[in-house]
Structures are given as C-alpha cells and as structure tokens.
C-alpha cells in the first residue's frame, strides 16, 4: 500500500489563529454540508444523514482539534464509514425503500418505470452494503464530489489506487443490479 506522505495532506479548512471554539465553528460551517451529502448519498434519507453527520461532528469535537490538518479528511472518511455501517445495519433490519429519494425526481416516469428504478436503487444500496469497506468508501466519496486527491487523503491510500478501486466497485455494483433485473 502506498501511504500519503504528511506534506501531501496540507488540507486545512480552518484559518490559523482562531480559538478552539471558533475553529470548530469554522470547520463545521465549511464541512457540514459535505458530510451530510456523503451520508445522504449512502442512506438516501436526509434525516438519517443529518443524524450521522451530527454524531460525527460530536465525536470529532470531543476527541480532536478543529485546527488539525487532518480534520476534513477525518470527517469525510467518518461520514463514509459511519453511513455505510448504518446501511449494513439497516439492510439486516428491513428492506429499505427509497421512495423519499424518488419523490423529488422522476415524476415524469410512469408508475411501472418508477417502481423499477426504485428497485434498482434498493438493489444498488444492498450491494453497496455488501461491498468491502475500502472500495465502498472510495465510490461513495467520489460520487459525493470529492476529488481523487481528497478521496486518497480521506482514506489514507495512494492516489494511484483510486481509479482501480472505483472501477472495480462500479463494475461489481452494476453487475449486481443487472443480475437482479434479468432474473
């Protein structure tokens, strides 16, 4: 595994010279939307995504300094892993429907098509929950708009591995969805 050297992770969201509380507020303002976005990408449930995001910030606030250079990367990784963990837990409890996600889009589709798309999305997230943690996290972070460098920083892996992990994860997930569709 190729680790990133420390000089490559100079990604500080918080300006220097702030008090601890000011620094945390600046970090929160800069990163909250993105952390919610990552969790929502996985869970497709805005309320649950906010719960996850707030738990992550509470944990971060208790244990880390907001001025730490690793803060954004830590939050991104935490968002991916915590929401994927929830997805795995939820998968066991019940078959999730993503009607809420559908509600705001695809209104032009007929009911039959809507049901198919909903089923594909449910199947995709089931498969996402079964994927190994690393490729699943790479996929989720990239889909949430992080650059290759940001994904690499968040997960502590070499930037050269991102493309391969992403490609494999996409191929696996698409196969899972196609398999279900063809059955």
């Amino acid at each position, binding site marked *: 595994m190729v680790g990133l050297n420390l000089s490559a992770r100079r990604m500080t969201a918080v300006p220097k010279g702030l008090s601890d509380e000011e620094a945390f507020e600046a970090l929160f303002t800069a990163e909250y939307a993105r952390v919610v976005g990552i969790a929502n990408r996985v869970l497709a449930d805005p309320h649950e*995504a906010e719960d996850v995001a707030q738990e992550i910030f509470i944990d971060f606030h208790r244990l880390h300094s907001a001025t730490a250079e690793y803060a954004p990367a830590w939050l991104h990784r935490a968002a991916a*892993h915590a929401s994927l963990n929830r997805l795995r*837990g939820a998968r066991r409890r019940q078959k999730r429907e993503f009607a809420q996600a559908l509600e705001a889009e695809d209104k032009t589709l007929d009911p039959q098509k809507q049901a198919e798309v909903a089923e594909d999305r449910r199947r995709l997230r089931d498969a996402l929950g079964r994927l190994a943690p690393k490729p699943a996290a790479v996929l989720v972070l990239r889909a949430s708009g992080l650059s290759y460098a940001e994904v690499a920083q*968040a997960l*502590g892996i070499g930037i050269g591995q991102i493309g391969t992990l992403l490609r494999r994860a996409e191929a696996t997930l698409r196969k899972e969805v196609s398999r279900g569709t063809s059955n």
Partner: protein
Amino acid sequence: MVDDPDAKVGADAAHLDGCAECQARFKLASEDARSVATLLAVPEAPFDVDKAFARVTGAPKAQPTLGLRFPILRPAARPTLALVAAVVAAAVVVVAFAFSGFFFKPATVKPVPVTVADIQALSQLADYGTITWTKQPDLHVVTSPTEAADAAAGVQPPTVSGLPSGISTNITYAAMPQAQAVFTFSADKAATAAASHGKTLPSMPAGMDGATLTITVGPAVGEIFGTLSQPAGSSANDISLPQLVVAKSAAPTATSTQVTVTQLEDFILAQPGISPELKKAVEAIGDPSTTLLIPVPIEYANSTQVTVQGVDGVALGDNTGVGSGVVWVKDGFVYLVAGSLKQSDAINIANNLK
C-alpha cells in the same frame, strides 16, 4: 478512470485511439460509471446549519467511565497534555520506585490498588522537584498504519483480528516518538509543597536533594476504533470510551542517580495519604526491577491477573461492566487493549493481536 482528467493523456490517449480492445473496455467502464452514478443520485438533503451547529455544540461532554480521558486523542490540546504529562510523571515515579537497582525495565505487569487519596498524594510528588522534558511528548494523529509507524520510529501498529461484531472498522491511528523526562528532586521545593498542604514531610534520604530520575517512554503507536458511530438505541451522551483502543509502546525505562531505590521507595511510601493497601501491594511485588505496576483505581475498577499471548497480563474491568481492558508486556513492549466491550472480548482481541 473514466472521470480522471489525468488518466487519458499522452501515450495512453494515443494508444486508446488506436486499440479497439481498449476502446471496448473504456466504453464498458464508462457505462458502469454512468449507470452507478445515476442509481446513486439523490436529491440534496435540506438542513439548517445553525440548528445543527447548536445541537452539536450543545451535546454534553461525555463522562469517562474510568474517570479518565484518553490524552492521546487530543493532539493539539497542549495544556491538557502538559497536565497529563505532569500526572504521568508522578505516576511513573510510583513505577520507578519499584526497581531494585538504578535501572528499571519491566518485563511483566502487576496490578496495584490505588485510591483517590493515593492519586492525590502521589500527584503532589510532582511538586517535590522539577520535571524537565529532554524529549517532549509529541503526539501525531494520522490516518494510516504506515504513517503511524513512520512517526513512531518504525514501531508498527499491531494487526487486530477477531473483532466482535459491532466494533467499527473505522480506525484512527496515533503515534508518539520516544519521550524522555528528567525529574530532579529538590529538598526546598518538597518542604514548601508539603507545608502548603499542611503536611509534614517524611525525612528525606541523604543525597536525595538534587538526585535525578530519568524516565523514558515510547515510541508508541495506537489504534482507535469506532469513535464515529454509536450503538443503535443509545444516545450520543452514552459514549464515554472509544469502542476499542489498541496501543503498543516500547516498555518505559527509568534510571536514577544519588539515591538507592530502597531509599526512594521508603520515602514515597512514607508520604502522608498513601493507603495501607497500596503499601502492602507494592511491598508484596516479587521482582520489582522488572515489574510494571498498573494502578487500578479501586473505587472505579477491578482487576484480575490473566494469561495473554503466553505471558502474564492484567485484565481491568470497571464495576459497571461497560468497559474493560487488558495490559501485558512482551518482548520489550507494553501492550494495551481497552474499550467499551466485554472483558472476554478484550482478552480475545489481545490474544489474536499480531
């Protein structure tokens, strides 16, 4: 690959243009990416950032189960670190008085019961002289084991297996290079400190004024699991310990000048406030030159001696049953496995550590 601006340039781009097989693969990858992106698409989550911030900052601070916080988790909290360093230095004095020569390096561990009064009495020892850090503790929190090992002079974080279900696989790594402190006893400072607490100082052995105790700790690495999510059904306020902490440190060493260890031991045990239980336990230690004493706060935790990785270890479990840990020394390293888990799980993880 498909969306990486750097992936399709130069020779790669030229090759792709003329290779039907690669074009087919690229097309398939593009279709996979598009399909998955479509299925992962979600409407943007609406939120009120001010309310969210108020909720997060309004969450009460956790009350640590063992009355301890993990200083290793707050790398930037220098004032906290300084306080912890002072307390640790005082605690290490306790450890150091157990050695029988002028050099102490533990090969095994033994629990000793301490009371809050003991801790208060021992922490005052820090006022009996001056602590000088010849190598400051310098904590790093990183995101990979490779970086942790780099920061801790090559000490590799142990590989953990046999995790019970429910423990997060999200790991934060911490590393500390070797740190070294020199404690110089001062008869004047000791007399002043004792007087300020309204106590009479026990007679100081000859030569103790100016004697030094050099304590070396680390390098050390730690892995912190699952500080990010909480068990279903619990509130955020329930979290007081990370789910799991695994730490490995080069065994601490201590050397002294001018005073013998017996003199030092007698002096420390004669401090006002030291409990008879602690005195008895320390005096009962078989081979003090090679034993690391694990202070167990008897009001909060209990301990049992166990076998871990084929050596003697100390298992700690707090009396509420929500946290436990195990400490052992093997091949010159002190290991710790602790967290909010059952003692049997902690011992199982310890035995599977590689």
